[in-house]
């Protein structure tokens, strides 16, 4: 770009110089000056014109560029315009003021040169000198006239006065250059002044009656003439200078204007350059910031120099570099999160458990297909619906209550197995609830994971009944064998006619009777399991109930009984007798587990967050084998040789009838049974 501009600039400069030279030759009329003076003048004028034109061009170009930036709204143009405006005012105002004041002073000085105080003495001196000639002329004229009247005869005595009197008779020779004599010959008296180099001679010529001419000459004193010439020269010099008074003023004005304009434009150009150096990086910064805000994080600005602007530019580059890196990391993290989200979504949509994510307001954030299938709702966009709307097909006050109560509470985690009606069909759901928290520990929502256990329970129940049938067959089969053997022995003795048949009869009958009693006991136990009475709910104090049950076991001296009931447990609606039976059953098992010598704990606790009553029975006995935990509450499962296996099954049934749950845990050492009764049961 600069290569293109430079020849253009040179061509323009040459044309400008040529035009200026032509104007100077045409109008200045320097023909009379020496070659050196002409060359110097041309050089000076053309240099000034060129410098001024260059500066005007540079300043004009900068201002035009600024105007273009202003019109196109280039970033940073406002700051630049303001800066340039300030520079222009700062540079122009003093320059103009200085120019006006200097011009005023110069004009005043020039005027003073030609003031009356100077002019009057010179003019008066000339007037006085003129009077000298005038008076002397009048004197010699009068003398010439007097002599002429006498016919030119009386000339005596004038020589003494320094006068020269000549009489030229009529027809006398007259020089062509002597206009005075010629005039007198034509009848006209006149005077004139001639000079002989040293002094002036005042002459007078007068015609005589006989057509002659009388000429009287008076030589002025040389000293006087010298003084008069000095005065005259001074006057002429003064007038010469005065004649160019206006051009002198104009000269000063032009010179001042030229210097002022050069100064102003030079300062302006320098100011604009400085301004450009200041605003350039700022403009680049603004442009860079705009590009960064548009998302171009590869933007970098070239920093020049070592000043604060350069430091700012470096800081900007560093900042943008960090933003670029962060953006890259963010994108990577986002991609990773997106991948995880896709994986999670894949998992959520492919697992059989229902998953619902609720926010703090109880509105659905996400729900998977399994949840829709379990809850019998259309798998469309369900985000934003409330939990009540999601559970509209589910009749379970317990579940609704749990969700309602847990929404704003920090309950940690909760696992429930509850019964519900889904579109009228009974279902058993196992529900896991968990708080969702952010990095600051603030609750952001609730995660609900649930499984439809209906089919599982059906299968478990079928399996349980198969097991019961198998155990029943086994239990029934056990007494049948001794009965059969006793009967066969009795028949054999009878056939043999054994003499001790009476004893055998007695012995066999005893065996048969015992085994039949055993069978009857077995039948009675099953009968009792199948005939558990209906619940009779009444307001019950759980702490008092725990105290009452624990009182039954104070008789075991080697058993350390620990009873704990937390304060503030509200009354619950329970079947007091059946829950008491549950606790006694668990306590019996615990005492038996420690072989009547160990530590047994019974406790009641209330979890206000989950609105759950917890009843806990624990011991430090041998504990429960992990493989037995799943079958612990099945009917007829027992780890004891003499047990019927119906105790914990009855316990589980009673707790389930109360809408609660029971689980066995490892107490390290020992076992720990936790009963959770839901909030709906408390008053």
């Amino acid at each position, binding site marked *: 770009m600069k290569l293109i501009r430079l020849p253009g600039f040179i061509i323009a400069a040459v044309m400008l110089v040529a035009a200026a030279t032509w104007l100077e030759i045409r109008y200045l009329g320097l023909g009379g000056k020496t070659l050196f003076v002409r060359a110097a003048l041309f050089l000076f004028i053309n240099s000034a014109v060129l410098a001024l034109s260059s500066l005007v061009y540079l300043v004009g170009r900068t201002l035009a560029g600024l105007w273009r930036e202003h019109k196109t709204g280039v970033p940073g143009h406002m700051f630049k315009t303001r800066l340039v405006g300030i520079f222009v005012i700062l540079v122009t105002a003093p320059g103009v003021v200085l120019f006006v004041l200097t011009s005023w002073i110069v004009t005043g000085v020039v005027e003073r040169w030609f003031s009356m105080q100077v002019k009057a003495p010179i003019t008066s001196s000339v007037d006085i000198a003129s009077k000298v000639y005038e008076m002397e002329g009048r004197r010699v004229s009068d003398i010439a006239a007097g002599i002429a009247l006498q016919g030119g005869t009386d000339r005596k005595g004038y020589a003494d006065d320094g006068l020269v009197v000549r009489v030229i008779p009529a027809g006398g020779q007259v020089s062509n250059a002597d206009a005075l004599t010629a005039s007198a010959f034509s009848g006209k008296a006149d005077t004139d002044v001639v000079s002989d180099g040293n002094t002036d001679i005042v002459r007078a010529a007068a015609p005589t009656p006989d057509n002659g001419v009388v000429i009287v000459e008076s030589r002025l004193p040389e000293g006087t003439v010298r003084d008069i010439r000095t005065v005259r020269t001074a006057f002429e010099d003064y007038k010469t200078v005065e004649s160019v008074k206006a*051009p002198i003023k104009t000269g000063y004005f032009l010179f001042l204007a030229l210097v002022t304009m050069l100064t102003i434009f030079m300062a302006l150009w320098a100011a604009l350059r400085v301004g450009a150096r200041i605003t350039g990086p700022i403009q680049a910064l603004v442009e860079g910031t705009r590009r960064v805000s548009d998302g171009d994080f590869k933007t970098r600005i070239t920093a020049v120099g070592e000043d604060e602007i350069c430091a700012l530019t470096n800081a900007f580059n560093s900042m943008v570099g960090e933003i670029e890196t962060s953006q890259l990391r963010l994108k990577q993290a986002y991609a990773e999160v997106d991948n995880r989200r896709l994986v999670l979504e894949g998992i959520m949509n492919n697992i059989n458990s229902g998953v619902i994510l609720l926010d703090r307001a109880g509105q659905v954030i996400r729900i998977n297909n399994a949840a829709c299938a379990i809850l019998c709702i259309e798998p469309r966009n369900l985000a934003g619906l409330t939990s009540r709307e999601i559970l509209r097909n589910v009749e379970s006050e317990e579940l609704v209550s749990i969700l309602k109560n847990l929404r704003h509470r920090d309950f940690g985690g909760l696992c429930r197995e509850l019964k519900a009606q889904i579109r009228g069909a009974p279902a058993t759901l196992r529900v896991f609830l968990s708080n969702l928290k952010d990095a600051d520990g603030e609750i952001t929502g609730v995660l609900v994971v649930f499984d439809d256990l209906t089919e599982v329970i059906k299968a478990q129940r079928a399996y349980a009944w198969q097991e019961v049938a198998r155990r029943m067959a086994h239990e029934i089969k056990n007494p049948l064998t001794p009965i059969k053997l006793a009967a066969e022995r009795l028949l054999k003795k009878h056939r043999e006619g054994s003499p001790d048949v009476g004893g055998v009869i007695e012995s066999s009958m005893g065996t048969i009777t015992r085994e039949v009693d055993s069978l009857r006991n077995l039948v009675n136990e099953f009968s009792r399991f199948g005939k558990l009475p209906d619940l009779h709910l009444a307001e019950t104090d759980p702490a008092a109930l725990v105290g009452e049950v624990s009182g039954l076991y104070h008789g075991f001296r080697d058993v350390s009984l620990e009873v704990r009931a937390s304060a503030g447990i509200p009354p619950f609606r329970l079947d007091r007798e059946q829950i008491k039976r549950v606790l006694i059953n668990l306590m019996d098992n615990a005492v038996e587990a420690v072989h009547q010598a160990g530590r047994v704990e019974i406790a009641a606790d209330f979890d206000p967050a989950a609105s759950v009553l917890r009843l806990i029975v624990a011991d430090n006995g041998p504990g429960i084998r992990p493989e037995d935990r799943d079958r612990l509450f099945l009917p007829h499962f027992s780890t004891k040789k003499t047990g019927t296996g119906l105790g914990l099954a009855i316990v589980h049934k009673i707790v389930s009838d109360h809408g609660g749950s029971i689980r066995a845990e490892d107490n390290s050492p020992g076992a720990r049974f936790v009963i959770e009764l839901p909030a709906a049961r408390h008053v």
Partner: protein
Amino acid sequence: MTPASASPYAGLMSGRISLIAACILLISAFTAAAQEFSAPSYRTEDGRIIVDARLDHLPDSFIADINNGIEKRIEYHADLMRQWSKWMDEYVSGETIIRTIKFDVTTKQYSLKSVEERYVREKTAKDLREAVEWLTTIKGARAAVVGEVQRGTYYVRVRAEARRPEIPLVFKALLFFMPEIEFSAETVSPAFPLNK
């Protein structure tokens, strides 16, 4: 308005007016200075082309300068020009006459001097009109010898240039812009054939 009651800005105003006047003067210095010239008369006399011409009017400032005792000089060039139809006209020959006038402010006499090709003439005059008449009129200027001129079409051109008086050196540099020629004038005669 008395000086005592003059506005403090009067000087500044006068300065500005002076500046404006100076600008006008500057412009006029570049644009003015053209005087009227009567068409020259020419005649052939003794085998020569003799030219008479008269400058019709002198500027008032020029007259004022004369009366202030400043010596004034007018340079006349009476030239024979050959006319060409498809080229610039050609200078053939001419005569230069320099007229000088100087008024003595003490004796009130005009000293007149004419430097011509071969001789110098001087005279004095007391009357301004007489002096100016003498200054502005040229008679008998010998433009060319007819026998030395080729056959062709010619015309007579008379130019007059008045140069400014010398000014003190201290002001010369400052007044570099001021033309040395105070005024100039030019007139030409109708074209006429020679030696055809």
